[in-house]
């Protein structure tokens, strides 16, 4: 299962309105992207510029992945990328752990195990 499929399944189990599920997933990516650029900038301004520039040139996934590969040669930048990814996902998972019913948690565990 890729991330989109997992998150869609979790949203279904949460009974999140079907017409808002895609907005939730899109906004997650936008939020993670902007948080990442902002955090990278704190470690290295030029690396953040490279990511923004790659995107501004409508880079494809391969080019953007290459850019991330280049900038993460800097250990501080790599730590920021990993840190913000873990933090954003952890917050989402915290929400599930705190507010899902036992039945919803069981359904989620079953879904990700299939």
């Amino acid at each position, binding site marked *: *299962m*890729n*991330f989109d499929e*997992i*998150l869609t399944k*979790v949203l279904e189990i*949460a009974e*999140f309105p079907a017409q*808002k599920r895609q*907005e*939730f997933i*899109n*906004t*997650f*990516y*936008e*939020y993670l*992207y*902007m*948080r*990442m*650029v*902002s955090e990278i*900038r704190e470690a290295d*301004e*030029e690396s953040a*510029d490279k990511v*923004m*520039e790659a*995107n*501004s040139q*409508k880079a*494809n*996934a391969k*080019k953007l*992945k290459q850019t*991330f590969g280049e900038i993460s040669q800097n250990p501080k930048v*790599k730590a920021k*990328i*990993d840190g913000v*990814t*873990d933090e954003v*996902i*952890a*917050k*989402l*998972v*915290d*929400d*599930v*752990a*705190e*507010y*899902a*019913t036992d039945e*919803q*948690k069981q359904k*989620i*565990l079953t879904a*990700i195990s299939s």
Partner: protein
Amino acid sequence: MAEGQEVPDQEGDAGSQNSQSESPLGPSDAQRDAKENLADKVDDNKVEAAGHKGGLKAAFAARLNSWHETLLRIQEEEYERVQRRESDVSNRLSSKVEAGQLHGKESIQVLIQPFREIESIAIKRGPLLLGAVMVGALRDRLQPKPQMPKAPPSAK
């Protein structure tokens, strides 16, 4: 977010306090961090209130709202920071911002598409995808932890 809930408006207070001591060049990293931490705390309080009232569905709705609000703030800050920088790259980016090519919801939607496609964002993890990070975190938090067997009562 669930309707009708009341959350203290700490964010506004923090904004006015910080803006008083900002230099003309913009907030320092420490000021920005403090403001972000407080904004995160307020967001978490809103999600918590919604979650307690309406369960996971309401918590997710509040989380979505908080992402929208944070996105707007970060976008503004990022473009201000880019515009303040004196470099070839930032000059090119600034001109795109001024031309309306890098600002606003629609342009961000276009920009994140390749980012979304690569999925493997945590570079050090190599082939491990964002989905795998999510699955690992869910299993870790949701699976019941095995209970430690009780120690037998000590013989007296």
